[in-house]
């Protein structure tokens, strides 16, 4: 998008006010407070709870959370407040500093927990104890708190202490086996999905545990979340296919293997990118006739326009390999000379479920999202700029989702939280600062 067009587009996205986080008294989780100690495995989880109304307080060591060093950076200038990763995952939270390795820090942390409903933490199993962030210490600080521990493999079992990152979760969770290509092997998604998966699944576990307080006398509990299991839940039907048929579904990812059978390719090149068109793009099945008509009008249906082929494709019969190849070649030829959005609109009109292969920029420009006023513009008053962020992942009629402003600076809310929320006197806060606790 050219700069002028971008400005014009962006000006249509309403801008959120300054001084984050914005209040959100109308969310379904309003009234709850969440303490966030998490790394990549839990920051999105906590952020989503905040956007549903919870007051989320990010607790960081004085040097700053490790993930503030995650790229990419705004204008490629690395710095504690310029990580786009940090912005995306921590928007709308408050930040306090607290050294959990010091006794005074742990005491302070437990006072915070006493005022909270949930704690999200991602320390390796067993290591939370020395930080005072283990379930038992936290239950002592607040029996009503839900303690969510998100780890690589879960709290128990032979792999519980193994180090892992996103690609390990994708591999050990069975997901990577199902994609990639023959020559180069399996591939992970470049934007970490094992992390994304465990975050959103942990968020479900958190709200179920909050709901369960109603059935459980107001008591909190420990929620033990595994990244490996989260990824294992993203294997489509490969789990059942092995169980039932004894066949391993596998890549390449450019086709689709279901129930042990490799389908034809589903992505096709266009003049301006690619389209996704599953199952021969609808050339087989109830939409077959309409799709063949479309190709025929353009003079590109070839032999498929014959009554025999039409009759055959409409009722979906297994095809010989060379017949499949003819359909794929026909699709590929048709797509290669057309624009992807035109192809998608044309196919959808004829009852075939195509979609464009979009880049992040194309997603931002997507007419459907613009029409639904999806995007929100978040003001970064600290640098005098504002940027477009993803908007409501769901529209709740009575208790709306809300983006709550930019991510916090390191310790930005120390006075507000320790003074206002916990009621510490200014002198006490100063003393904690001098003692390098906060």
């Amino acid at each position: 998008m050219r700069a002028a067009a971008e400005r014009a587009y962006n000006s249509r996205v309403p801008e959120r006010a300054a001084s984050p986080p914005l209040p959100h008294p109308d969310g379904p989780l309003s009234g709850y407070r969440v303490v966030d100690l998490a790394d990549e495995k839990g920051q999105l989880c906590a952020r989503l709870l905040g956007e549903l109304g919870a007051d989320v307080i990010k607790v960081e060591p004085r040097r700053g959370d490790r993930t503030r060093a995650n790229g990419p950076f705004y204008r490629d200038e690395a710095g504690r407040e310029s990580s786009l990763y940090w912005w995306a995952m921590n928007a709308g939270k408050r930040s306090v500093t607290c050294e959990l390795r010091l006794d005074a820090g742990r005491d302070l942390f437990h006072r915070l927990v006493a005022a909270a409903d949930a704690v999200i933490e991602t320390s390796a199993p067993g290591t939370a104890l020395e930080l005072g962030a283990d379930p038992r210490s936290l239950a002592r600080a607040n029996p009503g708190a839900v303690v969510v521990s998100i780890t690589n493999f879960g709290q128990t079992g032979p792999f519980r202490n193994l180090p892992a990152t996103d690609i390990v979760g994708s591999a050990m969770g069975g997901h990577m086996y199902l994609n990639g290509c023959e020559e180069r092997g399996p591939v992970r998604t470049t934007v970490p999905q094992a992390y994304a998966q465990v975050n959103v699944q942990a968020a479900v576990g958190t709200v179920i545990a909050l709901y369960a307080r109603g059935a459980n006398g107001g008591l909190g509990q420990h929620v033990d979340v595994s990244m490996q299991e989260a990824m294992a839940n993203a294997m489509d039907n490969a789990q059942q296919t092995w169980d039932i048929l004894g066949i391993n579904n596998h890549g390449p990812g450019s086709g689709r293997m279901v129930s042990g059978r490799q389908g034809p390719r589903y992505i096709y090149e266009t003049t301006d990118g690619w389209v996704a068109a599953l199952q021969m793009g609808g050339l087989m099945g109830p939409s077959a006739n309409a799709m063949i008509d479309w190709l025929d009008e353009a003079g590109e249906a070839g032999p498929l326009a014959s009554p025999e082929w039409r009759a055959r494709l409409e009722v979906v019969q297994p095809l010989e390999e060379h017949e499949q190849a003819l359909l794929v070649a026909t699709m590929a030829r048709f797509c290669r000379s057309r624009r992807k959005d035109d192809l998608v609109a044309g196919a959808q009109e004829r009852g075939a479920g195509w979609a464009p292969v979009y880049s992040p920029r194309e997603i931002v420009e997507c007419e459907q999202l613009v029409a639904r006023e999806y995007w929100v513009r978040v003001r970064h008053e600290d640098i005098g700029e504002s940027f477009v962020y993803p908007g409501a992942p769901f529209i709740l009629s009575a208790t709306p989702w809300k983006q709550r402003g930019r991510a916090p600076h390191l310790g930005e809310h120390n006075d507000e939280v320790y003074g206002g929320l916990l009621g510490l006197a200014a002198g006490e806060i100063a003393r904690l600062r001098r003692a390098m606790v906060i």
Partner: protein
Amino acid sequence: MALRERPKPFAGLRVTDLSWVGVGPTVAKYLADHGAEVIRVESATRMETLRRAGPFTNNEPHPDNSGYYANFNSSKLCVSVNLKHPKGATLVKRLVAVSDAVTESFTPGTLARLGLDYEALREVRPDLVMISMPLFGQTGPWASYMGYGHVLQAAAGFNHLTGWPDGEPIGTGVAYTDFLVPHVGALALVAALDYRRRTGVGQYIDFSQFEGAIHALGPAILESTANGREAGRLGNRDPEAAPHGAYRCKDGRYAVIACFTEAHWEGFRAAIGRPDWTDLERMRRKESRLREQKELDRHIGFWCAERTAAQAFKAMRGNGVPSGIVKSPEEMHRDPQLRHRGHYRVLTHPTMGERTYDSPAFRLSKTPGELTKAAPLLGEDNERVLKGTLGLSDEEYTELLMEGVLE
């Protein structure tokens, strides 16, 4: 204490599950596996897509033999009701009147035509929580677009971001969004149920699968909107780690290795016996190693080619290097960690026999979930629900049967 029945989070909650295929049933499965009474409403006149999709037990296509369907529908009941029959819609309305929540994933407008949209249903159940979850939401130019998770992943950016920089946008190989957005939808639904628990107020949730999925790509969106730069696919590389990749081993399997820190790198060096090349000046710091990824991959490729994936994994993990094996579905079933965790639950189904089901990625310590039963047969619970829950007389029930309402 140990003898006392542990409470289930959603005990006493009833859900009418009108959804189908992957996303909706997975959302409702969370509720069913945590104690809600979830009643699926299906019909042989418009068969649930996945009952027609394999894998089928004994390779025998039959609505009650599909493993694909079964996995998403543990712990649920099922009634068969023809919604196109006027009495069918009335029956569903009666069921909703005694339900707390409704889940559905029809094309927008479908339920309104049947007189079963939120506006109609809240009349019989004012505090109802209802979630609709089609691909693109209830409004907008794409609202009527059809498709599956495999193509939605393309629109939502996952193809663009999966593959090699010089290759095609492969995508994840699965109907990816079907296995991502249910968690986002379930978060909204349970949050709304919790709000109802605390205030008594129900509501309607317009969930667009597309809009939920985009939140899994946050930093890539900001790369575009704040830096004006398009994120691309990087194969198995990571901009913050070197080495980082999946490497083919002697046995044809792949090992993954990820060195984000200098401690990981030192562990990696120890694991491969500290060969000279690892001591070269340009290999000593991550910033410079990031420029030497080709050479790193070449060396690791040689090292892995002489070992099985299990040997490579053992050497790496023994030295604290984040590492693993790209596990096949078969290996997942044998994985000692997943076995210890009881991730795959074996449930006995009347026609499919003993089959494995996925369970949630989390365990609640005091009110744990439980997969209470295998997936239901089509219409298995007609009598139990219609006579028991709705109180139909034998005569009324027989009449509905005769009129084809329960097909």
